[in-house]
Structure formats: C-alpha cells, structure tokens
C-alpha cells in the first residue's frame, strides 16, 4: 500500500489514477496512522513552497514523513513534493524544507538564458547521472513532462538525472530510500508510468 499524502496542496486525482492504472494499491490520506502503516509514501505538491511546508507542519505530517524516512521507508516526492525534501528553498524568501536530502531549491531566473521561457513547461529529455532502480524500465534520453520555475541545486550526492534547459537542471534525485522527480511522472505518458512502476517494486 502506497500512501499519497493529502495535505491540502494540489490535485491528487491524476497521481492516484496513475497508480491505480499500473495496478498499485494506493490510499490518499492526511492521517498520520495510515501514512505510518503504508509500505511507501508519495509526497505530491503543486503551488508555493512556503504554503506547502506550512501545511505539512501545521498538520504534523512533516514529523511523520521525516520519521518514516529515517526508518527506511521508500518515499518519493513529485514536483513541489520533491523540492520539499531538501534543506532549504529560496522561493520568494528563504524557507526550511524537510531536510531529508542535502541541497536547496532556487529560482531558474537569472541562471538560464534570459530569452528562455519560465516556467520550464513541456517535455524534456532525461540525462542519467547514476544508475538507480527507478530507471529499471526507462532509458537515458526518455522524455518527461516538466512544469516548474524553481530547481534543486547543490544536491550532487543525490543527483540521479538532469534535463537540459540552457543549463542542466535537476530532474531526478535519490539517496537511499528518499527519492524525487521534478517533473510529473503521472503526466509523462508511458515513461512516467514506468518510473512509478519501478518505485512500486522497490
């Protein structure tokens, strides 16, 4: 059973549907006990970092996620959910994250060429940096769907794949049992489903 953490941020319909589609058992929940009971945790997220981390803290789910991660339970963050795994974000101010991965989240603005559009929206190719069980059913160069204006940096120890948008931007991270995708696997067609499938099998 995979617990999709519901903390009032974003629409969880597609994430839930994609797991259902590949035959995984999922529960969408904001209940600490149910999250603790699950075999794996999926942390989704759309919107602003500050708002999201505040909601995790006010519900006490931040502690649950951190504890479960330390117990070795596989955890995957998607998009903002991935960004929350890091130590810090500089999205409109400076905010502390869950600190499960080292590194910080910073704006793309000022880093990539000025004539490129921000947010980075669309399908872009993965560039593998290390091998990882998440890559079981996908290959280097596969396309996935991104929608974001901020990206994770200084995360060399967990960096698994990047994507090129003028600069190489963090696309997939993973260290021990804690993983994350900057893009939306639930919106990346077959490739995305294959990443979720690999996560289910871990």
């Amino acid at each position, binding site marked *: 059973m995979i617990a999709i953490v519901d903390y009032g941020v974003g629409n969880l319909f*597609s994430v839930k*549907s994609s797991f259902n589609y590949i035959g995984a058992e999922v529960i969408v929940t904001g209940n600490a006990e149910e999250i603790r009971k699950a075999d794996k945790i999926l942390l989704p997220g759309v919107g602003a970092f500050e708002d999201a981390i505040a909601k995790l803290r006010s519900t006490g789910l931040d502690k649950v996620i951190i504890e479960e991660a330390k117990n070795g339970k596989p955890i995957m963050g998607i998009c903002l959910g991935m960004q929350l795994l890091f130590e810090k974000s500089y999205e409109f101010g400076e905010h502390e994250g869950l600190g499960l991965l080292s590194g910080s989240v910073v704006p793309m603005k000022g880093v990539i060429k000025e004539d490129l559009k921000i947010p980075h929206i669309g399908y872009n190719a993965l560039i593998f940096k290390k091998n990882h069980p998440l890559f079981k059913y996908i290959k280097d160069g596969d396309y996935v769907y991104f929608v974001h204006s901020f990206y994770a940096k200084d995360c060399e120890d967990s960096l698994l794949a990047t994507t090129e948008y003028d600069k190489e931007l963090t696309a997939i991270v993973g260290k021990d049992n804690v993983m994350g995708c900057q893009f939306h696997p639930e919106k990346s067609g077959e490739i995305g489903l294959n990443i979720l499938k690999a996560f289910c099998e871990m």
Partner: protein
Amino acid sequence: MITKRIIPCLDVKNGRVVKGVNFEGLSDVSCPVELAKYYSSCGADELVFYDITASFEERRLFTDILTRVAQNVFIPLTVGGGINTLDDFDRVLKCGADKVSVNSGAIKNPQLIKEASLKYGSQCVVLSVDVKRVDGEFLVFSKGGRENTGIEAISWIKQGVELGAGEIVVNSIDTDGVKNGFDIELLKLVCEAVSVPVIASGGAGSIDHFIELFNEIPDIDAGLAASIFHFGEVEIKELKKQLKENNIRVRI
C-alpha cells in the same frame, strides 16, 4: 531542450466526440475515452477537450467523461468551453484536468484570469483567443468566433498574460478550416508580444504545414488541430517522424 508539442483537440457533446472521426481499429470512434487512449498511444503530447454542451445535465455528463479519460490517459489534459467562473475551474480540475482554457468568459470578465491564476497557478490558466482580420486589424471574436468584440488581439493577449495566463492558444478564424497552413503572420506577432508558451491553431492541412510552422516561428511551442487528426489526414506518428527528420525536436 523542450520539444515542440502536438495537440489534438476533441469537441465533446452529449458525452461523444463530434465532428466525426474515422479510425480503423477503434471500436467506438466517437467515444472520448477510446480516442484519448488512441491519441496518447500515437504520441500526442497533450489533449484538449472542448465542452460544447449547453445544459446542466449535459455538463455533468461531460465531467463524467473527463473523469474517465483522466483515469486512463496520462498526458496533460486541457479543458475548455463554458468556463466563466472559478467554480467552473474547480469543477473540471477535480475531474483530472491539468489546465483550463478560457475564452469568452475571460473577455466578459478579465479578472477571471487573475483570480484563477492566483488560486491555481499560471500554469493552469490557458487563454484561448479567436482572431480575425477586419480592415487590416487583428480583432478578437467571442462566442465561438461569431461575435466581433472590436478588441485588438495583440493587446488583449498581452493583457491576458499580465493578468496571469500561463499559455496562449491562438486560433486564426481566417485560416481555420481552409487547410492552407497556419496563420504565420498572426502567430509571429503573438510570439514577439509575449513570453509564455504559444500554441498555434487553425489552418493545418498537412504535415508540411507543421514543419513550416516550427521552422518559420522557432519560438512557437505547439501546434493544435482537430479534424485532420480525427479523419486520419495527418497521422501523429508520421507527423512526429517527419518533424524529427526536419530537425524539429519532438518526443518520440
């Protein structure tokens, strides 16, 4: 770098795709779920669904259909048609839409763009604009292209982006249905005016028209079409193959 996107558009009425479709191998060619699955498997990068129903009952049927599509197809879904309020946004987003396209509703009430982008994020708000040349000027038409608003198109699009629209669909009424190619002149002007993704619509009749579009306007993000895909005049697999052969980046 990101790829150019190819987007089929499906008009849905009474739970069925209208405008007729003929595909071999599809058991039910006007079933939105079947068609959506088919397009997704052919390499469509996104899907747009237009709700062209009017009554409340039919609208409920549309959201049921949308839910079923979203349970079976895992590429971005945009929904348009009859979006006038934040409640309309909420209704379709809950069914699994990723983006919501506004047109006449935003012309009536431009603040809708602002309110929706603040609530759901700019990436969720698509401004769709029907444009036609009138006395040498590009003007915005509303109500499915039937009513001249008198508003100048480029200034409206700029205003839409300032209000928070994250993507623009430009439909040229002049080229729509003519199958003589996209409206390059208009699309160039739009791409120069805004820095958000621009999606070209209206006029595609062949693969060459897509190649022309992406070659003539390197900044354009996507090409959208309906009947040429539905009637199989342009097959998405072949289209993407030829785009790639012409050094245009696509997801294959």
